[in-house]
């Protein structure tokens, strides 16, 4: 490379790397945490590093290395360590290094253009975009995959101590990142034997290196053995051990558009085959060639390692413990990117440009969600303005396996003043447990004991929050207890990906309520307050709360109208809307409901006294409900007088 070319290539590499992670970050900016991410962040709030090791030792399978680094990262960030985008900068950093190593690996194998194409393919790969950006070990797994392969190839070329050390360091890091790092090392060992010519001292030293890496795991061997021997071993969501194993990996991992991915991989493989055949036709040249198949043989590592790792994963999944998942097999992805890059490189520039355009467009415009998340962030945003420590939170969340405890951790770590275990009650939900910090108050049936426990749980609290997902009949008896003492005041429907959570804020029903007026046959106004008093100014937003009692379940969708009238009875300002809590169609018989709204006093309203009136109307037809006195006498107007606001100029 010339003096001009070198900085240009470095600049290109930097731009490509930054563009890739920028793309990932843009796609991930608004995404909620998944349960694994919440575990790690929560662990950082409640544990020190040695406790993290103990915690992971209880699970057994995952070595603690990556988790320690991640917990350290979150703790180093302080309060900012609870924010999704900031926490995930760890993955951004890891991804940057992984892509840089991949570039270097490609450049070592067949020149910098190969590295550039490989980074492009990996950077735009939907699978990598998703899993490398989560705050989970998969980005690091790609990093150590590229690092181990690069370090081994370099060591084989020149077996210096520094390179040996680098390989061992990457190997140890791989084993400490994820147990699929073991599959990677096995793949590298087999590839070494397959591709590198027999040379006693080199082989001895190579296996010394592999041994050193393996040796580093001895401390973790007992927990690992314990998990596989004493525990269940595998995971329930592992890939099936048949044709679907490969089908699903293919569907999830291939570049988009898939046909272009197929094309590149086939061309890459055929190109390697052609190189090999060409070398074999030349006859095996004598000399100090280190690889069995000459220079083309070195490139074969990008096929040999993933093939061995994939075979091992399949065999273990089939005959051992079911643990193969596409995300664990992310170790295949750097090699696939290299094979595809070999394919790109063999095309004429016009086809390369076309391929780049066809891959870039969907990468920029679409984002594949491999796993959907729950709207945790939205829940906290909804609760934060009104939440007070001591509030009761009731969860009826029938979501994924770890959803119940994860919800508590998330709220615990983020609600102002925190949320204690004793203040959260779980109705149904998952029984999955984070062994280090189990949740409290979980019931699976609505028996007398559970309901009595629920009554005790609510006792004395002024405010309660009900969070539901996939609501079932189990909730109904508890809801009855809740609505005996509390009125719904605010409702939120919160969405993340395709997951829809509902949250309702409840307030304890005051004992001072008394019938003030009746609207229609079934609804009674029993109280109201103007928290800021009756003296208001023009342009002011006047908060207003009213308490309603449903004598029977209304069969219509009703709205509440709040009106400010002038001396002639003409409305000068009004706030018409459905109740701020549940819609009246959801009101059960003999339940209370708190409506909260604000009325804006017009800026051009002359100073003076203005009556404040309230009414109810049918949302569909717009018709007002007739109003009655508490004893049943019909009122002449559907608007009921509440008080008089004294408006002064601002």
């Amino acid at each position: 490379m010339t003096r001009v070319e070198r900085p240009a290539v470095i600049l290109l590499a930097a731009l490509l790397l930054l563009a890739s992670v920028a793309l990932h970050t843009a796609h991930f900016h608004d995404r909620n945490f998944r349960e694994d991410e919440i575990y790690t962040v929560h662990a950082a709030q409640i544990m020190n590093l040695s406790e993290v090791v103990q915690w992971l030792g209880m699970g057994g399978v995952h070595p603690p290395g990556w988790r320690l680094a991640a917990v350290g990262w979150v703790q180093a960030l302080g309060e900012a360590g609870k924010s999704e985008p900031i926490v995930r900068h760890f993955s951004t950093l890891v991804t940057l290094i992984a892509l840089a190593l991949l570039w270097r690996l490609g450049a070592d194998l067949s020149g910098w253009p190969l590295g550039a194409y490989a980074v492009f393919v990996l950077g735009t790969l939907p699978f990598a975009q998703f899993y490398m950006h989560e705050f989970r070990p998969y980005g690091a797994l790609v990093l150590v995959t590229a690092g181990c392969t690069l370090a081994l190839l370099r060591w084989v070329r020149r077996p210096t101590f520094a390179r040996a050390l680098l390989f061992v360091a990457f190997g140890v890091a791989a084993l400490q990142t994820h147990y699929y790092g073991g599959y990677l090392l096995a793949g590298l060992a087999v590839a070494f034997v397959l591709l590198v010519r027999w040379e006693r001292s080199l082989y001895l030293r190579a296996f010394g290196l592999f041994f050193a890496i393996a040796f580093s795991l001895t401390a973790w061997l007992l927990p690992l053995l314990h998990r596989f021997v004493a525990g269940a071993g595998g995971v329930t969501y592992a890939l099936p051990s048949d044709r679907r194993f490969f089908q699903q990996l293919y569907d999830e991992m291939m570049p988009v558009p898939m046909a272009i991915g197929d094309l590149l991989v086939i061309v890459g493989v055929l190109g390697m085959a052609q190189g090999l055949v060409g070398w074999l036709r030349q006859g095996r040249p004598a000399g100090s060639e280190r690889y069995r198949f000459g220079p083309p043989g070195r490139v074969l590592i990008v096929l040999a390692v993933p093939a061995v790792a994939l075979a091992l994963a399949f065999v273990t999944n089939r005959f051992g413990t079911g643990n193969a998942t596409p995300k664990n097999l992310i170790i295949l992805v750097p090699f696939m990117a290299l094979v595809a890059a070999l394919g790109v490189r063999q095309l004429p520039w016009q086809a390369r440009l076309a391929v780049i355009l066809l891959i870039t467009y969907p990468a920029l415009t679409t984002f594949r969600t491999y796993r959907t998340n729950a709207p945790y962030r939205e829940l906290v945003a909804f609760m934060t303005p009104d939440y007070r420590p001591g509030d009761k939170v009731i969860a009826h969340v029938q979501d994924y396996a770890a959803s119940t405890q994860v919800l508590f951790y998330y709220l615990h770590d983020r609600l102002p003043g925190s949320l204690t275990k004793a203040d959260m009650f779980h109705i149904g939900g998952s029984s999955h447990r984070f062994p280090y910090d189990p949740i409290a108050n979980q019931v699976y049936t609505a028996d007398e004991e559970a309901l009595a426990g629920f009554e005790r749980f609510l006792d004395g609290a002024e405010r309660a929050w009900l969070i539901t997902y996939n609501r079932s009949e189990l909730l109904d008896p508890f809801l009855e207890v809740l609505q005996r003492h509390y009125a719904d005041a605010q409702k939120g429907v919160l969405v993340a990906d395709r997951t829809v959570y509902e949250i309702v804020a409840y307030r304890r029903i005051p004992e001072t309520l008394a019938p003030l007026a009746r609207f229609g046959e079934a609804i009674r106004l029993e109280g109201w307050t103007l928290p800021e008093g009756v003296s208001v100014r023009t342009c002011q937003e006047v908060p207003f709360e009213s308490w309603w009692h449903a004598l029977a379940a209304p069969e219509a969708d009703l709205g509440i109208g709040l009106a400010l009238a002038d001396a002639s009875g003409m409305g000068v300002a009004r706030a018409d809307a459905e109740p701020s809590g549940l819609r009246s169609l959801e009101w059960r018989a003999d339940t209370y409901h708190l409506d909260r709204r604000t009325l804006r006093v017009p800026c051009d309203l002359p100073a003076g006294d203005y009556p404040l009136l309230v009414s109810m109307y049918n949302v569909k037809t717009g018709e007002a409900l007739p109003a009655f006195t508490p004893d049943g006498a019909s009122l002449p107007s559907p608007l009921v007088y509440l008080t008089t606001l004294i408006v002064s100029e601002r």
Partner: protein
Amino acid sequence: MLNAAETAQWMGQSGIHPAGWRILGVYWVKLVGVTEGATRWLSALCTILTLALVYRLSVDLFDQQTGLYALFLLGTTPLIIFYMREFRPYPMLALVTAGLLLSFLRWVRRLRFNYALLFVMFGITALQTHYFAAYVLAGLSLTFVTLARWDRGRYLRAFGLFAAIALSFTAWLLPVINGLVAHGPLGYPLPTKWSTLVIVHDDLQLSPPSLGQLLLLVALLMPVGAQFVRRPCKHIFRFGEEWRKGYILLVPLFVLAIAFALNTWKSSITTRNLIVLLPPLAVLLAFALRRLPWQAQVAIVTLIAVPALTDFRAYRQGPAYRQMVNFIESHYEPDDRFLITGINAARPLAFYLFDRLPTRPTKSNLFFVGYPTFHLLKLEHLENLILTPEPEALADFADSLVGAQRLWYLYGKEDRALLDPFLAILQKDFALYRIGQATTDITYHFREYRRVPANLRDLAHFGETISLQGWNLPGGVSVRACQEVPFESWWRALDAPGADLGIGLVLADATGQGVARVDAEPSGARTLDWAAGTYHLDGRTLRVPCDLPPGDYPLLIGMFDMVSTEPLPIYTPDGTPSGSTLYYLTTLTVTP
């Protein structure tokens, strides 16, 4: 039913489509018959010729390998696979497009009379095939002006050829003008919007589409270079050797632009009309494929061949005409009545029934309910098109049933409010005998109703609600071993049964042991659907065992609950329990 002159008149009535292809199609049918397989061989023939011409065009422009790739790409394009096999003008349209491109190219390069004649012949055929061929001719003339250097003699002669082709169309000009001016826009063409381009792209693209996009981009970016120069044409064409690519790129581009421009005035774009784009584009993509390294060629051929062999994209699903005729055919009698509703294409169904049933049904025996009563200018008018169940229409329907023994009720989406008055009339005198269904674009239902005989009487009651009213052994009581014995029985629901019941027909030996039986639901409606007071005809066959010794065997019938399999008790018509769950019908005499 039409000769060539009548076909031309028929086509002239609507005006847009020229008569040529239709006359050819009519005579082809007269030659080979009306079955789907035979008629579509005309399309197969056109497809073969199209592919051959596209190959030749590719070889003329580039080389043989490009020709082979063009064949492959065109032959595996899903739109070509679908529309080139239908018995419609589109295969011929593709054929004449390829023919025009090839013959004109040859003529431009060597101004020989026979090439000119060939081009004019293709041009005339094109205009007689489909009006989109005119767009191709216009695109070709614009491409000629763009690519061919100014040469007064060549230009004059070229436009003479175009004029000759246009001249041949003068006879059809008035119907076309009338069609364009007098008729409103059709309901199905695509609007002139960007989204139309997306639809055209999606429909015309190769499968997988991204490979088509790749090849198109490569074709646009890749220069032709000197690789294909065998006979330099610099004195004829501009742009060096790039004219080769320009020839197959500009024609479809001009055609698309013209189609869009005219679409703003008169909606006419459909993706199948734009099949004219595919022959030149296939050559263009083949050029790109040819220029890729062999590994990419192998990969692309494999990746296109796999879906072409394993998937079939049905651009349009036709109604289940064939299944309907198959259902009707075995029991059909010329005097049968038809009640048809909820089938989108009622007129084609009527024509299909006219042509396929052993004897053509009388138009007055076909009732179409829920169809507008006005007549478009079409091949043959239908009678009894009924939009709503007006009293007059119901009376006509009731009158038409007089004397009929059978009615075929064919429907797709059933509007009960519309149909119930007709079904009420029908069910007074007719019983449901057989049902069938087939799903293509939607699910189609076929029902055979038979007239309830006047001589039915109460023979026995099964349970509380069902009465056996009569039975019939059409083949008589003498049967042979191995024979399939047809049997019909008439039933009346005294009240709605409210259970899912089956009918059991049993042949017993002297000891009362069953030697053969056929248990199944009634051949018509399930008993759950039997309304009080309705009659039902059950038809089934009983197979006499091959090893049954000759002799006399009682034939018995029973009813049973399909869920619990429990038989229903039998009562005499006056309500006395018979003590058995099987009712004796007759004795079959079995001979070897």
